[in-house]
């Protein structure tokens, strides 16, 4: 009986209607994302809001990025040790951790962590403002919410993710060195020298271009799901979940294509 009630409430949507809805969502997202960048060239520029968001996003995420960076580097060193030892190349562990963290793991892990923490925060905060008519009130008071709320979050996320990635890279190397020195008995000087020497210009550029794209994705996806929240608190919750899922998946997809592109542009290692 309960199942019958449930089925009677299920609304069937035609595939064309569903496709139209999806395309419209993508269109709305692209417009919001473009608007968030275009606002940088319009007055007023909300510098104080950008600083506040930078503090919330950057400093607020620092502890989890430090912990995640350190343990990612440590796990990377620990897991590669047995394979390298089999080939008598345990001394290469510094190079492996360095390349792994700087080129891929540092940006991606930091991006995923910041997505989990901040895309959800943005979606829930803006979503609550939408359902309580605060966004309409802001427009009614003559202020553009994309300028006041979206652009500062996008700028702050891009800016802070860049530096958080550098911190994660460094902490990853530190985690790797902890394993190399204290568990594998390697020389610390050798570890840091080889870690440093293996890095080339394309590695660093590849690792530092990624957070710019991920920061943009995290903030625009989080803001999009917030600004389009519908259906009260349940809708805000749904938007928050979707913001984390979509931004995380997009980070991984963009990671693949961006790395390919940068490898083609900067030359393969």
């Amino acid at each position, binding site marked *: 009986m309960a199942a019958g009630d449930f089925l009677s409430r299920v609304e069937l949507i035609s595939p064309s209607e569903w496709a139209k809805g999806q395309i419209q969502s993508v269109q709305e997202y692209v417009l919001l994302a473009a608007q968030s960048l275009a606002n940088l060239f319009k007055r*007023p520029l909300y510098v104080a809001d950008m600083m506040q968001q930078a503090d919330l996003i950057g400093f607020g995420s620092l502890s989890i990025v430090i912990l995640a960076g350190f343990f990612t580097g440590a796990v990377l060193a620990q897991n590669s040790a047995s394979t390298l030892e089999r080939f008598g190349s345990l001394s290469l562990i510094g190079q492996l951790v360095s390349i792994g963290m700087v080129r891929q793991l540092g940006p991606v892990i930091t991006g995923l962590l910041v997505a989990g923490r901040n895309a959800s925060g943005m979606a829930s905060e803006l979503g609550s*403002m939408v359902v*309580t*008519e*605060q966004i*309409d*009130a*802001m*427009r*009614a*008071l*003559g*202020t*553009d919410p994309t300028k006041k709320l979206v652009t500062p979050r996008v700028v702050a996320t891009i800016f802070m993710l860049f530096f958080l990635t550098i911190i994660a890279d460094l902490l990853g190397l530190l985690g790797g060195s902890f394993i190399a020195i204290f568990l594998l008995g390697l020389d610390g000087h050798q570890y840091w020298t080889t870690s440093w020497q293996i890095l080339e210009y394309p590695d660093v550029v590849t690792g530092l271009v990624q957070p710019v794209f991920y920061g943009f994705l995290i903030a625009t996806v989080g803001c999009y799901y917030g600004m389009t929240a519908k259906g009260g608190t349940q809708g805000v919750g749904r938007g928050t979940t979707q913001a984390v899922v979509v931004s995380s998946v997009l980070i991984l997809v963009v990671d693949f294509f961006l790395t390919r592109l940068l490898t083609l542009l900067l030359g393969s290692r």
Partner: protein
Amino acid sequence: MPTLPIESADKETNEPAHEVVVFENVVLAFEDKAVLDGISFSLARGETKALFGVAGVGKSSILKLTLGLLKPDAGRIRVLGSDITQMGEDELFDLRSRIGMVFQESALFDSLTVRENVAFRLTEEKEVPDEEIERRVREALSFVELEHTLDQFPSELSGGMRRRVAIARAIVTKPELLLYDSPTGGLDPVTSTTIVELIVKQRDVYKTSSLLVSHRLQDAFTMATHRFDRTTGHMQPISPGARAEIPMTFVLLRDGKMVFDGSAQELARSDDPYIREYFS
């Protein structure tokens, strides 16, 4: 009921009476369902127009259309002399600075204090000095008798106080047009009367044109039968013979169409069965 202070500032307008808001055959639909179907009315300068109708008939949508927060699917809307149906969002932001709106659930920014909420528009304008902002915020809050709540957050206020802060936020820039969306909805009768008195005071002291959505017929009739008395600081009932002088009209919506637009006297004389049933 608390006494209300009387402001020395009196924004009398010498401009000839003309239409502040004009709706011409406005149609609005949500997902193929017409909410408003050919709505036409006008609001004269200094007039207060109360919009009535059952829930979901599109009263709040009329306010949002007037502000340009929604775009009509057909028809034309002129607000303060500008055709807003042809305006882009940037132009609308300029126009909205001349309009104040009180939202149904107050819509105060919950992360800002009462002072910051009321000062929001002035702070956004950038060129207003801090001392001037403080003075105007205090003036607006004293109008609604909430000067003591300056540093409180909206969550610390009662529903009626939040509504009064929303009124202060709407009037702080002395707008030419005020839009009230169910300002007394969900409030107790005493608090409702305080809000009604504030609306009457704004109408009679500042001569501000306003569109008012209401579910409470009693509130609108109180507005149509009372005038703000500056000597006592309260609204006072006026004699039946003088009621025609009150710039107050009523609109009744039904199934997306307007079934009545006229004064309280015309409303009382109407023999339309639906109108009589609705207002009985």
